[in-house]
């Protein structure tokens, strides 16, 4: 996604990336970035919250208009109801370590079966 935005910028089309995976977008490097600090899935505002969605697209259009150099980032002022998602997402701990290892093995076994046509 960020790579496509870069391609457009290099070819004369102005872009804005809206997203919640800050480090991935910043690692790639984009012209303009609107960051909303939400769990992944709703970078343009909470579901059904039209007022918040209007604010976020408004910020993106403002940024389009006003940015004068690449790697310009703004962060919208919104917060999720709580912070539990921060630690919970893709968590690895003693409670799930064995289950994750088994799931990985199982998945590789199935993929190998598909490949060998068994």
């Amino acid at each position: 996604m960020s790579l496509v935005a870069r391609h457009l910028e290099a070819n004369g089309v102005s872009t804005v990336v809206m997203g919640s995976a800050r480090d991935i977008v910043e690692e790639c490097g984009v012209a303009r970035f609107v960051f909303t600090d939400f769990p992944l899935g709703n970078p343009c505002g909470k579901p059904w919250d039209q007022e918040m969605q209007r604010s976020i697209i408004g910020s993106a259009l403002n940024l389009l208009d006003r940015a004068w150099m690449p790697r310009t980032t703004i962060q919208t002022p919104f917060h999720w109801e709580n912070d539990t998602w921060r630690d919970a997402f893709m968590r690895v701990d003693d409670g799930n370590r064995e289950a994750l290892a088994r799931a990985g093995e199982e998945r590789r076994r199935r993929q190998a079966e598909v490949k060998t046509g068994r």
Partner: protein
Amino acid sequence: MDGLRPYRSFVSYIDRSREYYAAQGYSKPYAWAHHDDVPFTPLQKPLSGCRVGLVTTAGRTPAEGLIGAGGLKRGPYAEPANPPPKSLFTDDLFWDKKATHTDDVDSFLPVNRLAEQANGGCIGSASPRFYGVPTDYSQSRTSQGAAPKILEWCREDGLDAVLFSAL
């Protein structure tokens, strides 16, 4: 909440996903694209005269029966923005399925919100189509396949600017 924190509040998805897949026994971590320099095109005309488009990482909702039957196409696509899509396919993407949902398309592809901006005169017009680039972990397929295709469609539709949103 305000406070004092010994850990960063902002989740690092690079760290998190690397550790998660390592725990599943995948020893070679995914390598993310890094660029020192970033191309930049200033907006070429007043915003109120610009035609603006949208790009999403979500996919088209597959026809009945296609999921799991090998019929799921993951290449770039263009679809009419009017009537706006009532739902898009996100089941196969990397997002927080415990914390939230994607039932409201405007929460990740603000197609109705962009139409409002055009009606209100903030932008000149919204693109008649929106575009999809379902996440492809092959950077060369993205750079050499999807990127030029999206650029071609943007030119066909006469766009001045594009808003991207990644789930």
